[in-house]
Structures are given as structure tokens and as C-alpha cells.
């Protein structure tokens, strides 16, 4: 049997009944498009989460500790971590100031009340804040122990904040005002540029000892701890939990430790199980599409019984007839798959922008996979009608009108 001829024939019969072919393809189009969109969005979400967690730095622990009686554990935690120096390389309070703050340099201002992408993130931390939160210094110097100890009015700016306040002027050595009080800029961090998390670069970091003046002396309850390695992070988490539980019994407050490495793993697992459910639903729509193909191919076989009889009379073998109808089913599904992928690309662009605020396209693997899968679907569901067609007796098929 000539495959080229079968393809030609398939295209002829598809274009002869355009509306019917389109409606038949619709099931495949919807199925393929939904698989492409879902897989892409899930991959995008996954990537975004991982980027966020990675930008926070790997091997970090987030510590939340609070005593009902008041008074923070900063010094206790610091001292304990000094004793874990083979495991822990840094520890810092992490205090986000939520009071309204206006930050100004010359005529440029940023406020904590701006929209989330541009709002100033005024944060109080120790000299190890940058290390624990994965910021790298671009120019100037980082906070020092003395800055903290002396309540110095100094700050380090995130890359975004530096750009917004200073444009192209070098901020180091200049002063900004926060709610009117001057603070000397001693350093600037590199921009992290994490898709979907612009606020991380709008950091304005000040020594945590300024908590009293800038944050109404609210109790410090959040800390970051940086470990030397993944296994060190696991061990430090266990030890810290033991220490903090002893320090703050359940009756007098709370102490939680989150290992960000474990967060990544569990985020992955969660996404994987969500993906399975969503892709399963999309696969059901593909199955429905496939049944549609089988149905229309059965109709086609009935309509073309006489043609099958003619072909058999002039010497077509069973396998030639099977090949012809299988190719036709595969072509319908393949075209449907291509349209589905096109719709999937558009849908992914729109959905990614709306849900994730990202510009993203489906990957090559999912694109090729979706196309191949739809062709296989056509072959699978075309099998029964094709075999039925090939089994017709020539003399009976010729009698059909």
C-alpha cells in the first residue's frame, strides 16, 4: 500500500467534509489544549516556587519564636547558634516593618503603602541578614556588628530600591530619610530579579536594634538561620527545635522551625500530586475526543462501504484498507493536535499572565508529546473502524449504495 496515496486520500476526504471534520477534531483540540495549558501552568508555578525558595537561599531555616510573657529570644538564639558553629554560618532576626514609612532621597520617594510591586520593604536584621537571605553585595559594605551594637542610623538597599531612589547615582555614602530621619546608605545589594517576586529587590535593610524607634519596639519573633549544608540544615533544625522547646515550654509561647530545603521538597510533592489530578482530568477530555473519532470513523466506513468494495475488487488487501482508515484517523487527530497546540500556546500565554504574572510558553517536550499523543490516539481509536472496514466482503460492499 502506498502511504503517500493514503495521506492524499485522507486529506481529500477530510476537506470534502470540513464542518464534520472540524467538529470531530474539536474534542481533540480541547483535550490537547487543556493538557498543554495545564502542564505549562503547573511547570510555571513550580519553577516560580523553586526560584523563590532558591532566592531565599538554600540550607536556611526559618525560626518563629514567641513568648507570651514578652521579651524576645534574639540573644539566646544568637548564643546558641554560636555553639553550633560547625553547622550554622549565620543567624538574623527578620522583622518586616508594616507601619507606614516614606523613604526619600532628593525628590524620589518610596512608601511601604505603594502597590506591592513597588512598595518599600523596610526590614530590620543583623549583620548576617544578607548572608541568611541570599543577598550579595554589589557596592559599599554590608551591615556590621558595630552598626547593630551602636544603633547606627545606616542602611543597605536592595537593587530595586537603589534604582528607584537614586536612578543612576551611586547611593553609597549618601543619605536617605525615612519618615524624615536621615539614614546613611552604606551598601547596595545585587538585584535578584526573581520573576514574580519584585518586592525582594525593594529591600531597605536597617540594624535590628532600631526596632525600638522604627517599629514601636514590637517583639521580635521571626529569625533566619543559615546552615553550611543541606545535612547541616537538617541537624541544626533538630537541635534548635530541642533547644527552643526547652527555652519556651508550650505553656509559655511557641517555637517553630521550618527547613526551607524540606519546603522545596514538599512543594514539589504537592505540585506533583496536583498535576496528576489536573492532567488526569485533561486526559479524560482527550479520551472523550478519541471516542468522537471512533464514532465518526465508523460513520465514514459505513458511508464509504461501496468505495471499500471497489478497492477490494481491484485488488486491495485487508491491510491496505486498514492502513487507509488508520491514516485518515491519525491525520484528523494530528491536525486536531496541531490546532490544540496552537490554542494551548495562546491559552498558556493568557493564563500565565493572569495567574502567575509571567510571560511563558509551553515547553518543546510537552508540544511534541501532545502532538504525538494525539496521533497515537487517532490510531488507537481508528483501529476498530478500520478493521471493520477491511473485513467487509467485496461483493456485499459493492452492493451498498
Amino acid at each position, binding site marked *: *500500500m502506498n502511504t503517500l496515496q493514503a495521506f492524499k486520500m485522507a486529506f481529500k476526504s477530510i476537506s470534502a467534509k470540513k464542518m464534520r471534520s472540524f467538529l470531530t477534531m474539536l474534542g481533540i483540540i480541547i483535550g490537547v489544549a487543556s493538557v498543554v495549558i495545564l502542564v505549562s501552568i503547573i511547570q510555571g508555578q513550580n519553577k516560580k516556587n523553586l526560584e523563590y525558595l532558591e532566592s531565599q537561599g538554600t540550607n536556611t531555616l526559618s525560626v518563629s519564636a514567641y513568648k507570651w510573657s514578652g521579651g524576645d529570644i534574639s540573644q539566646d538564639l544568637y548564643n546558641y547558634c554560636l555553639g553550633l558553629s560547625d553547622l550554622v554560618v549565620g543567624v538574623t532576626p527578620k522583622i518586616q516593618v508594616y507601619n507606614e514609612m516614606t523613604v526619600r532621597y532628593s525628590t524620589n520617594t518610596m512608601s511601604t503603602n505603594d502597590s506591592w510591586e513597588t512598595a518599600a520593604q523596610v526590614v530590620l536584621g543583623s549583620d548576617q541578614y544578607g548572608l541568611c537571605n541570599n543577598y550579595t553585595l554589589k557596592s559599599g559594605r554590608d551591615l556590621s556588628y558595630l552598626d547593630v551594637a551602636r544603633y547606627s542610623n545606616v542602611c543597605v538597599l536592595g537593587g530595586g530600591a537603589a534604582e528607584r531612589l537614586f536612578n543612576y547615582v551611586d547611593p553609597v555614602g549618601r543619605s536617605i530619610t525615612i519618615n524624615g530621619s536621615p539614614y546613611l546608605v552604606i551598601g547596595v545589594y545585587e538585584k535578584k530579579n526573581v520573576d514574580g517576586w519584585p518586592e525582594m529587590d525593594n529591600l531597605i535593610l536597617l540594624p535590628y536594634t532600631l526596632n525600638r524607634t522604627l517599629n514601636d519596639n514590637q517583639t521580635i519573633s521571626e529569625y533566619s538561620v543559615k546552615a553550611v549544608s543541606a545535612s547541616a540544615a537538617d541537624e541544626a533544625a533538630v537541635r534548635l527545635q530541642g533547644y527552643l522547646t526547652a527555652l519556651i515550654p508550650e505553656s509559655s509561647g511557641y517555637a517553630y522551625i521550618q527547613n526551607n530545603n524540606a519546603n522545596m521538597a514538599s512543594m514539589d510533592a504537592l505540585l506533583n500530586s496536583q498535576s496528576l489530578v489536573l492532567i488526569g482530568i485533561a486526559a479524560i477530555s482527550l479520551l472523550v475526543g478519541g471516542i468522537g473519532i471512533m464514532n465518526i470513523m465508523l460513520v465514514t466506513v459505513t458511508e464509504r462501504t461501496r468505495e471499500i468494495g471497489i478497492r477490494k475488487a481491484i*485488488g486491495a488487501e485487508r491491510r491496505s484498507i486498514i492502513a487507509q482508515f488508520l491514516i485518515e484517523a491519525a491525520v484528523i487527530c494530528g491536525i486536531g493536535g496541531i490546532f490544540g497546540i496552537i490554542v494551548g500556546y495562546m491559552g498558556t500565554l493568557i493564563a500565565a499572565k493572569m495567574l502567575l504574572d509571567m510571560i511563558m510558553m509551553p515547553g518543546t517536550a510537552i508540544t511534541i508529546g501532545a502532538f504525538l499523543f494525539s496521533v497515537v490516539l487517532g490510531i488507537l481509536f481508528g483501529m476498530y473502524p478500520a478493521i471493520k472496514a477491511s473485513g467487509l466482503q467485496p461483493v456485499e460492499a459493492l452492493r451498498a449504495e
Partner: protein
Amino acid sequence: MLIEIKDIYKIYNEGRESEVRALNGVSLSIDRGEFVAIVGQSGSGKSTLMNVLGCLDIPTYGDYWLDGVDVTGLSDRQLAHIRNKQIGFIFQGYNLIQELDALENVILPLIYQGVPIWEREDRAMEALARVGMDDRAHHRPSEMSGGQQQRVAIARAIATHPSIIMADEPTGALDSKTGQHVLEILRELYRGGTTVILITHDNGIAATARRVVRLSDGMVISDDAQEVDWE
């Protein structure tokens, strides 16, 4: 003998009240290069006989040797090969595939025969030229008259150079002038050495054959050679 059938029966609904014996013990031999007309009224079993001879249908009982081969024991696939290589069919209703143009219709049996792609078109054009249809190669059946369609069907039947042409009422749907033209093409094939089996209910057409086999109620009632003047 090219074709030899012995005691062929084709029985529908055997053993029931509605039993129909389309062929009721037919024996017949046809030699290579004969021009045979099989004549009978409608219902006489002549079409059934052609279907059996053409390997389109399987007899209920009886033996059939085609070119020395016992056809009754062959598989689907072997029968398809015989229909493809040894037999060319011409039907009353032309039986062209509507979606294909004349050339593509004629190419079809060549594809099934496995003729290489670069030879197919030349051979199909040659067959179309023999029936005078080479100028209509790219017309679809719906764009041709009945006589033209039948000539394309003949081209399709002869494209594989079969040894037997079976024509079932080939002029049945044509006016007498175009019918004569079609018959002339068949005579031409006969002169070229092809065995022609012509099924008809029309005694006038049967009179033009060298041998006439008459069928009635599924049985052969006469089998005569006759002299005919074709010029």
C-alpha cells in the same frame, strides 16, 4: 484451461424456507483468449456467476480452478492478489471513486500491485490512451459522461494487463452508440489476446460474442459457439 468450474452452488439461507439457489450446479470451462457472453434474465444467476468467477464471492459448494490454481482454498490476501493481477472488472455502474480523478482511479490497481511510483503514471496514461481518455486524465467522474466514465473504468481494468476481463452489463447504463463504442474496445482487447467474459441480459449484445452461455434459474441451459462478423 484458464477457467474451470465444476458443480458450483451458491445457496443463500440454506436449509430454511427462504432458501435461494442463485447458482444451482454450474460447470463451465473457458479457455485462454475466448470471448464469452454469459446471458440470462435478471435473477438467472449470471451476476452471481461473475462474482464467483471474479473471486469477489465464494461459492457454497463446488470447485474452481483459475489458471490451474484451486481458488476455493485461497486466503483473503491471495484472492486480493488474483483480483489485482489476473482479473479486470468492468461494472454496469462504472464504480469509479468519486473523490479521485480519472488518472488517480486508473493508478489505484497499480498501487495495490506494487508498481513503483515513477512507472505508475506512465502506465495509467497508456491505459487511458488505449480507451481514448488520455485528454480527460484530470477530470473527476462527476465531470464526465456515462460513456466516458465507463471508458475510464475499462482503462482501470486493463492497467495491470490482466489475462481476464469480466464485464457485468458494461453497456447497461449507456445509449446504444456509446454502448457500441465500449463493446468495440472489448473486442479490441480480445484481439489483443485477453480473455473477455461479458455478462448481459441483452441478446443483441450476446450475438456479437464468439461463444454464448445461457443461464436460467442458476443453471446452464445452452453453451454454443457461433460465427460472428465484427467488421
